[in-house]
């Protein structure tokens, strides 16, 4: 039975990984060769097809982490703690990419390294700050039920932070000088939409793959630690 379950997990990660590779390849081809350049912004606008899907994936990871945090508080099952922590962890990685691609995009589009008038970027900055704080919390409490509980509580507080940040950044436009042109045009034509969706699917699948792989890795780590404890004669 153990064999079967390991095989099932392997399959999950492998399937996801394969799908991710295929989608990513397709997306890259579409981004660089298929979709036409944006009328106003030119070739550099293609960063949009990376930046926004990665950002959406980060939000999806965060929601998944928060859902599992709530489930952990409900069930007190340590595997749910792991399932909450891993998406948050991946969220930081993807989030860094969002900030980098966002910065690049601002640089090539408007010659500035950070666009303080962008509501999305600024909202994201707040969420990213929150992710970092989550990690500080995680690292400063020793492993165990308490760390799991505290992480879950903080993750759920973050759920409140998202709508609050979105609303705040929109309300606070006075501080950041408003810029009136829109970023990605009024409508996206079909090829742009298709490229965007494929890229989004690719990023999500990449996140799923990394999630499954990291989850498996951490579970193995825990098994090793458990065996080591047993070998030491249950201290």
């Amino acid at each position: 039975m153990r064999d079967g379950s390991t095989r099932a997990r392997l399959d999950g990660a492998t399937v996801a990984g394969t799908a991710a590779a295929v989608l990513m390849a397709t997306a890259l081809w579409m981004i660089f060769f298929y979709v036409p350049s944006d009328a106003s912004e030119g070739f550099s606008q293609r960063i949009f097809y990376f930046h926004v899907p990665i950002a959406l994936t980060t939000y999806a990871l965060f929601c998944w982490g928060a859902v599992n945090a709530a489930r952990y508080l409900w069930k007190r099952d340590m595997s749910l703690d792991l399932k909450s922590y891993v998406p948050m962890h991946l969220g930081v990685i993807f989030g860094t990419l969002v900030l980098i691609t966002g910065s690049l995009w601002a640089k090539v589009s408007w010659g500035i390294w950070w666009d303080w008038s962008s509501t999305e970027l600024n909202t994201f900055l707040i969420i990213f700050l929150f992710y970092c704080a989550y990690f500080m919390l995680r690292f400063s409490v020793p492993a165990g039920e308490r760390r799991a509980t505290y992480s879950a509580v903080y993750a759920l507080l973050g759920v409140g932070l998202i709508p609050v940040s979105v609303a705040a950044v929109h309300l606070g436009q006075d501080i950041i000088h408003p810029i009136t042109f829109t970023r990605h045009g009024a409508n996206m034509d079909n090829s742009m939409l298709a490229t965007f969706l494929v890229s989004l699917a690719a990023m999500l699948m990449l996140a799923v793959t990394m999630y499954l792989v990291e989850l498996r890795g951490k579970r193995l780590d825990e098994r090793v630690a458990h065996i080591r404890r047993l070998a030491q004669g249950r201290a």
Partner: protein
Amino acid sequence: MRAFRALVRKDLVLELRTAEVVPAMLVFLLAVFTLVRFALGSSRLAGGSRAATGMLWAVVVLTALLALTRAFAQEREHGIWDGLLGAPVERWIMWAAKACSLWVFLAVSQVVAVPLFWLFFLQQGPSPSIPVLIAALLLADAGIAVLGALLAGLASAGRAREVLLPVLFLPFAVPLVLVASDLSVATISQQPSGFETLKRLGFLAAYDTIFALLGWALFEYVVEE
């Protein structure tokens, strides 16, 4: 309700007796205002009241951290949690009582902060609407208090407690400061429509409500061992 009142009274009596928190906040305020005033200088305060008002909000948050770090300190240091948790009191009542006393400390510190702020930064030139500022402060205090009472419980288990609490709290303070500052600054030169002001005050109230609900729901997980 009796338990709630008793807990709030306990916090207030302890503060009156030990003077641990509020005096430190007042001294901190004075020091930071002085620092900023001299750092900006008269000529450089060309941004004037607008910059100063924005800065006030940052200082309010940083000062609040002093109170938050000491929340639940007595319970921690003397192991009194075992006594409180063994009592048949709902955990959220302990959180609510702590939030209430924190709110009082914050409001008291701002009774001094606002006149000091005026003295240091606003004597000449246009100033923000003081009633709006006070309303915003009271609402923001409530948000800081409800969130702070919860986070103070979280941070107390960690290793670097004094460093951890600011780190945990500040991401949540950003939206608060953003809107509160916008609200106050807007009242300096223009007369913003009542609707715009109300919208932002409404945001602060919504912020308070959201985190009060989360605090109410989550506090028991923070204190249960």
